[in-house]
């Protein structure tokens, strides 16, 4: 099939852009570092050399996190859109992030000791994402209309942020500062030492998502049709929520809640590839999601000397108009 070949070629092309994006991302940093130092940092690492540290501990983990976060959130957005049969669904809109925020707030600010470690932060973000995912899923059985579901997602978000404000009001200054820092979102908090752990969880969630490509394709026709095609919908629904919670929770734990990317990228991918085949959509969301967030972070880095923009502001600045466009286009039909 020529069209499939075309799409595969396009995917490959995007994959080739990724290293170029890396070069741009690296060059966008405020301190200019030559490429010879870049290679020295890897082959002749000197821990007392600041430039080496900037390469290995600042630029590199930041780029990797931009890629991982971008792909994870985009793939989650894609799965949510398919699960709820709604192109405006996404982990942020449906309040999955809010679940993470609420539980991270609880763990950071109420001083429950088991949550204080690095692992604790991740697990509370995961638990929060999972619980809110289940809530949204349960509500989706009652509420069939897509827009209502989004409204409920937004309500969940408001509800949890109200709870978070209460917790904030009652918490002491240091933990409040930590939480504030976390909720503003940043790609530069992850250390190179944490990357293996993050990557393993990421791979787990991502591989899981790839193994439900076939059910996802059937879900596009709605759950009833999917069931008639031999898909066990209960199992798949739960798996989608598990993988989404895993990926969203993981990224949210380390980078804070990042808005809109999970909504915007899958829609963009569908416009580019013009298909509903998840064998194309999933890898495409993965790559374009990574590219999208890397681009946003390049903007953050380039504007940093003039305007301090959180990554969230950039994704919203680019993502929100895109989403408005999708909504208008959808309503016009």
């Amino acid at each position, binding site marked *: 099939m020529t069209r499939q070949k075309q799409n595969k070629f396009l995917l490959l092309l995007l994959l080739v852009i990724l290293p170029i994006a890396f070069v741009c991302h690296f060059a966008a*940093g*405020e*301190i200019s570092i030559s490429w010879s130092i870049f290679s020295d940092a890897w082959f002749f690492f000197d821990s007392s050399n*600041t430039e080496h*540290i*900037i390469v290995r*501990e*600042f630029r590199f983990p930041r780029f990797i996190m931009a890629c991982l976060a971008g792909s994870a959130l985009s793939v989650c957005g894609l799965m949510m859109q398919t699960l709820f049969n709604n192109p405006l669904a996404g982990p942020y809109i449906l309040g999955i992030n809010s679940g993470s925020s609420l539980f991270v707030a609880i763990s950071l600010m109420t001083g429950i000791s088991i949550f204080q470690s690095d692992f604790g932060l991740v697990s509370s973000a995961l638990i929060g994402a999972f619980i809110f995912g289940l809530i949204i899923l349960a509500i989706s059985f009652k509420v069939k209309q897509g827009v209502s579901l989004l409204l409920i997602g937004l309500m969940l978000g408001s509800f949890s*942020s109200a709870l*978070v*404000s209460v917790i*904030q*009001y*009652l918490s*002491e*200054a*240091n933990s*409040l*500062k*930590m*939480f*504030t*820092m976390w*909720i*503003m*979102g*940043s790609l*530069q*908090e992850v*250390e190179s030492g944490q990357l293996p752990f993050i990557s393993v969880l990421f791979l787990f969630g991502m591989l899981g998502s790839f193994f439900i490509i076939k059910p996802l394709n059937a879900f596009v026709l709605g759950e009833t049709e999917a069931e008639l095609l031999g898909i066990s919908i209960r199992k798949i629904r739960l798996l989608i929520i598990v993988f989404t919670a895993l990926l969203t929770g993981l990224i949210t734990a380390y980078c804070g809640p990042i*808005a809109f990317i999970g909504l915007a990228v899958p829609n963009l991918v569908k416009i580019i590839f013009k298909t509903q085949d998840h064998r194309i959509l999933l890898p495409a969301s993965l790559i374009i999601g990574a590219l999208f967030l890397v681009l946003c972070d390049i903007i*953050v*880095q380039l504007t*940093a*000397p*003039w*305007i*301090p*923009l*959180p*990554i*969230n*502001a950039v994704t*919203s*600045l680019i993502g929100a108009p895109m989403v408005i466009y999708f909504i208008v286009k959808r309503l016009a039909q």
Partner: protein
Amino acid sequence: MKHVKLVFITFPKYLFMALMLKKSRTVDYFYDMKILSLFVILSAVLFSCDSQKKKDISTGENVARYAKYLRIIEKGNLTTIEILSPETGEVEQTLNVSKEMIKTSHFLQVPVSKMAVLSSTHVGMLSKLNEIDKIAGITNRLYVYNKELLESIEKDKVVELGEEGQIPVEALLKTKCQALIYSGFGKQYPHQKQLNAAMVRCIANYDWRELHPLGKAEWILLFGYLTGKEKQAKLYFDKIEKEYLALEEKASKLKNFPTVLEGNLFGESWFAPAGASFKAKLLKDAHVRYQYADTKGTGSLPLTLEKILSDNLDTEHWINPGFPTKEKLFAFHPKLKYLGPVTKNKIFDFSKSGNRYWELSAIEPQKILSDYLSIFHPTEFPKENLYFYQEVK
């Protein structure tokens, strides 16, 4: 770079105040407005303009000598207190106070028997005048250091009003207070009309915008006049002025200039005090070399962590990271451990008691300076116990 500084001058309520002075503000700003922040910043840039100083409107000798935004003129029994806007330099509020019985609403009869104060610095100033019992309302007991005040809160003699900008008006009226002191932000207090109708005076306090440590402390005079203890207030201020100037004088004779880094990350940026800011002034008076001392602006400079790192490779000291221990500091942001001063192990924070610092630092600038001198010049200014500060370990 010019724009950036303007931003922080013209959007004081959220950014400046948030970043420089208050802990709770910080959270509100970015939590509620994280997405809007860019628009806020952009609009601030668009509408900003350089502040112009207007000529004196009132005549007579100004009692306040350091404070730029407070003007006090005594005329016999009557004292005119003018609060100037840091934005325009014009008079924002005029307060005529008198100790005699005057039956007109244009005057405020002092002493005021009860007042609500919405910033910790106000509590600190009242405590120095022994007038804690005049306090009828505060924002949140979590931020109170003063023991007497805490006891009064326990006994329900003082109400907690919550968020500074959205206090419950009825709860405030119930306290029968006559004045409400809030941190000025260039506009009327949100409930001003209602409160004025109920004979509650809303008074803006710009101590947090003052650029001279003594100017900040001088706002004690406002509380002095309100409580009828202006004499004590003047005496107290003269005392700290003398102490501060003496320390500054002694420090200026030092030979060496240790290097220092101030502040911490907030989001993606490190908001370093600009050259003409209050914090930079304190550092200058402490005779240290601060990397950004020559920058323009009275607010802060948003710098990336990479820039801070590479600018401060050899910096010895780090002051005010905002955390009491290294463990918490690195939990806040793990990459802080690569900063120059961390490797030299010279980090100090006002973490002995955060609340005490927020309450008293404005009114005890001489103690901050004295702590700074002992931290930066331990041989010349040895001190067993620092007052506000302690080492971050």
